[in-house]
């Protein structure tokens, strides 16, 4: 076995030189580049992390602003709704009050018109009834229109209070006796006799004719009137009918 020491030494030197060459031209630049890439990646990661944190902060801030805006909007909407409700209630109340007033006025007008219409109808009906009664009475015998009412007139005088009858007796002016037609002498005597009997003393009568009485008599003194005629009866009936209808 033989060893070439020159070759051994040269090979050792060669390997050491190769170590230097590869360290200089392979390992160092490649490792530096890998470290640079790793640093860049770390830097990018840090930047991305910072950007993400910033984005998260922005998102949180935006969410808070959105919530605040939503709260303000809700508050304003609620306020507007409340104001609207208040205005609506006020308008409704005013409208209801106005409508109630209008309705009350209309009802009053309607009632008034209805009352007037009813009164007119009643008046026309009463007048029509009186006319009918007058036409029917006109068909009765002429003496019946006076003779049949003398007793009633005397009964009315008898029903007067004593003071009223006394005042009639002391009257200076003659008593006015209205008849539906002119009295005959006989009828005048009968009237004078029965009135004096009802009053208890003689009286002076001033005769007059009033066709409106239809039938019957009316005795008028300064302080009293005694009626016993159809006109008075019809007026009383008309009054009662009119008052009953109302």
């Amino acid at each position, binding site marked *: 076995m033989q060893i070439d020491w020159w070759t051994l030494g040269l090979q*050792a030197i060669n*390997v*050491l030189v190769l170590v230097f060459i590869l360290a200089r*031209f392979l390992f160092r630049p490649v490792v530096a580049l890998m470290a640079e890439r790793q640093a860049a990646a770390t830097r990018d990661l840090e930047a991305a992390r910072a950007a993400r944190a910033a984005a998260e902060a922005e998102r949180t801030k935006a969410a808070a602003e959105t919530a605040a805006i939503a709260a303000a909007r809700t508050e304003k909407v609620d306020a507007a709704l409340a104001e609207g409700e208040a205005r609506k209630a006020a308008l409704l109340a005013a409208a209801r009050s106005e409508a109630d007033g209008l309705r009350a006025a209309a009802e009053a007008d309607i009632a008034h018109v209805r009352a007037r219409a009813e009164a007119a109808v009643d008046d026309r009906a009463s007048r029509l009834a009186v006319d009918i009664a007058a036409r029917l009475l006109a068909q009765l015998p002429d003496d019946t229109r006076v003779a049949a009412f003398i007793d009633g007139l005397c009964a009315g005088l008898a029903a007067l209070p004593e003071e009223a009858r006394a005042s009639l007796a002391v009257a200076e002016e003659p008593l006015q006796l209205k008849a539906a037609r002119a009295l005959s002498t006989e009828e005048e005597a009968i009237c004078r006799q029965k009135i004096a009997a009802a009053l208890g003393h003689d009286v002076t009568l001033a005769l007059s004719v009033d066709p409106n009485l239809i039938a019957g008599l009316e005795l008028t003194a300064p302080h009293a009137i005694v009626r016993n005629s159809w006109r008075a009866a019809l007026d009383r009936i008309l009054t009662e009918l009119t008052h009953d209808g109302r």
Partner: protein
Amino acid sequence: MISSPLVIEPLFHVGPVPITAPVVVTWGIMVALGGGCWLATRHLKLVPGRGQALLETVVSAIDSQIADTMQVNPAPYRALIGTIFLYVLCANWISLIPGLEPPTAHLETDAALALIVFVATLAYGVRARGLGGYLKTFAEPTWVMIPLNVVEQITRTFSLVVRLFGNIMSGVFVIGIILSLAGLLVPIPLMALDLLTGAVQAYIFAVLATVFIGAAVSEGEAPAPAVPPDPSAQQER
């Protein structure tokens, strides 16, 4: 025809220095590796191409191997271990070029490599532990072991030499014998096997060198940082 591997004839002389074929081939490998690396690393980019990705993968694999084996930061050892691996690999595979003989098929080259590993082991051990601390490791676990530990240092260096020399020389020798006996294409399967053997021997030599250096510095340095990520994986991110 290959001559005896135990005899080496100088090709020429530079003064008194004989220049043999392994030296010339090693120079060629140095030029090829150095020039190739210079060309390949002139325009490195953060986004690597295929060639740059291959370079980064090789460097990352070397770093990962060193860190896994030594459990220390691989930076101080990267150049030595990586150069040993790449040189031995190229030297073993140089036989693919017709007419060239692997320098590692000669004892002087293997001895030079082993000598470098031996000296590097001592240097890194002394640097990590100090001279006294490193010498104390020879007395572990007891002073009785000092002779054995000294002998171990020498014999494991010799084992490096003999393992690499035997494997490569035998491969070259077998191919030469078969080539002299059989046809031109018959040695091709054996040459393919030599490629595998050469790669395995380069890996074994580098790993053993790492283990020896790692044993010398194992208690004197801090644990290794995280292994640099794979460039391709980094690119994907």
